């Protein structure tokens, strides 16, 4: 066999034990040396939530037009937070593991993939918070609605990994790509209906803008979270938009981006060890 060759993402299952060890390492060291430890995985999204809840919900009064605004806001904001972590960490994954990449051959996709799993683990406490809050408010989701949440997370994970493979591979040679990632992430929050309702936007803009907007896979992903948590609350809701077609498109688009990311990654991979 030829050393230094792999089937990319497809060879990950063969390396699942090593993948598990890399994930375990990341989880074990994440809050080493901090007194409050895992409390911080709760603190960050809660702080972000409070800022927007007060600024947008109360000062800008969106909270009065959208019922149960706290659930609406939190269910979207944690998904965007998840995407932010996936995209950031996967982009950094190769550079952060310079020592290993330069010394030992492993399928380099292992590093970004382990970042995605670690992000999923960090996402669990936030899912717990929203579930508890929903149960307090009164929440009766159908199985479809619960599946919708899973699909939303899947779209974001796929999209984040695809973009992360692409920018992570470029990041090895050009550290500029981290700045591009920062800009995309800054837009992610506003380019999806996290703080506002998509229905209010359609009224104020030409129809084609709305169509382009919905082609962004993040939009249906966030709406799937709203559907699962916010729309499943016992109080009646208005402004829920049907997203079946665009959800399907989002799944396809994020998978296509994953394939493109993987192809670019593979093309540049041969140079990682010498360019780092």
């Amino acid at each position, binding site marked *: 066999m*030829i*050393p*230094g060759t792999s089937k990319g993402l497809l060879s990950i299952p063969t390396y699942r*034990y090593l993948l598990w060890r890399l994930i375990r390492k990341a989880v074990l060291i994440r809050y080493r040396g901090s007194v409050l430890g895992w409390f911080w995985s709760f603190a960050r999204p809660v702080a972000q939530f409070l800022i927007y809840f007060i600024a947008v919900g109360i000062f800008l009064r969106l909270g009065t037009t959208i019922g149960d605004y706290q659930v609406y806001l939190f269910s979207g904001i944690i998904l965007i937070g998840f995407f932010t972590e996936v995209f950031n960490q996967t982009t950094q994954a190769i550079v952060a593991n310079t020592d*290993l990449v330069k010394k*030992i051959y492993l399928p380099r996709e292992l590093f970004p993939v382990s970042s995605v799993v670690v992000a999923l683990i960090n996402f669990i406490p936030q899912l717990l918070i929203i579930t508890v809050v929903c149960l307090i408010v009164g929440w009766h989701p159908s199985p479809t609605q619960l599946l919708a949440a899973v699909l939303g997370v899947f779209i974001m994970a796929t999209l984040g990994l695809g973009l992360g493979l692409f920018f992570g591979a470029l990041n090895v*040679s050009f550290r500029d790509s981290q700045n591009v990632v920062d800009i995309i992430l800054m837009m992610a929050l506003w380019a999806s209906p996290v703080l506002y309702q998509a229905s209010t936007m359609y009224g104020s803009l030409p129809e084609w803008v709305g169509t382009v907007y919905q082609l962004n896979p993040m939009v249906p992903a966030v709406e799937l979270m709203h559907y699962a948590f916010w729309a499943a609350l016992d109080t009646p809701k208005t402004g829920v938009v049907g997203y079946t077609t665009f959800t399907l498109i989002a799944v396809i688009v994020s998978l296509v981006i994953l394939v493109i990311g993987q192809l670019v990654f593979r093309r540049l991979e041969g140079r990682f*060890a010498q360019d780092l």
Partner: protein
Amino acid sequence: MRKTSDPTATAADPDAHLAVKVTEVRKSFVLRHTHTLKETVIAALKRKTLTSRFDALKGVTFDIPQGESVALIGFNGSGKSTLLKMLSGVYRPDAGEVRVRGRVAGLIEVGGGFHPDLTGRENVYLNAAILGMTKAETQERYDSIVEFAEIPDFMDTEVKHYSSGMFIRLAFAVAIHVECDILLVDEVLAVGDEPFQKKCFDKLQELRQQGKTIIIVSHFLDLLSKLCDRGIVIDQHQIAFDGPIDEAISTLRSLAPAS
């Protein structure tokens, strides 16, 4: 894990007995003088040279039969480590072909995968996995790894509290217990104190007797003469000599600039 047999190898294959086959391998590095898009664009506009080339290997060919132990020797910067990194797959050749048969494990810069905030035990399992071992293989060898490193009381201590000697011993112990057919060793024979070096030497001899293929890069020529059958001298990025280890060493010594 990595495949242990090559499906393309058949009984009629003249290379069936080979562990490593290196054919006309070339490698050059492009040294970029710019690191951001801005610098690249400005340098391009000013028509400055963006890159310069450096040939690390200029067409290298050799075979290593299974079970042979081979020393790659040469002066600093001659291309030995580059060659070893191509055997391990870290680098890919620009031209030519590298083929290996069996599991390759590299003792390349020991301790690369260690994390200071993890305990010795966690690091053993993590590093063994990085070097290609399965969970069962690691569990089976865990005790002998600890015994080899001689630090049984420190396995649940974070590695950052280790002395540098302890760290290196543990890292080396993991690497040398890796299940493999081909072992690549890069200048790590000089680890630890003299008794530990002796132990490493004995372990390498043991692996050699077990029929493993061993490829060593080192400057400790006396040690190599005892450990290897064959020496490949690399000089000026090409093979200058390939033959019995003692002749290889005297060739290298004759190449040394008289000072």
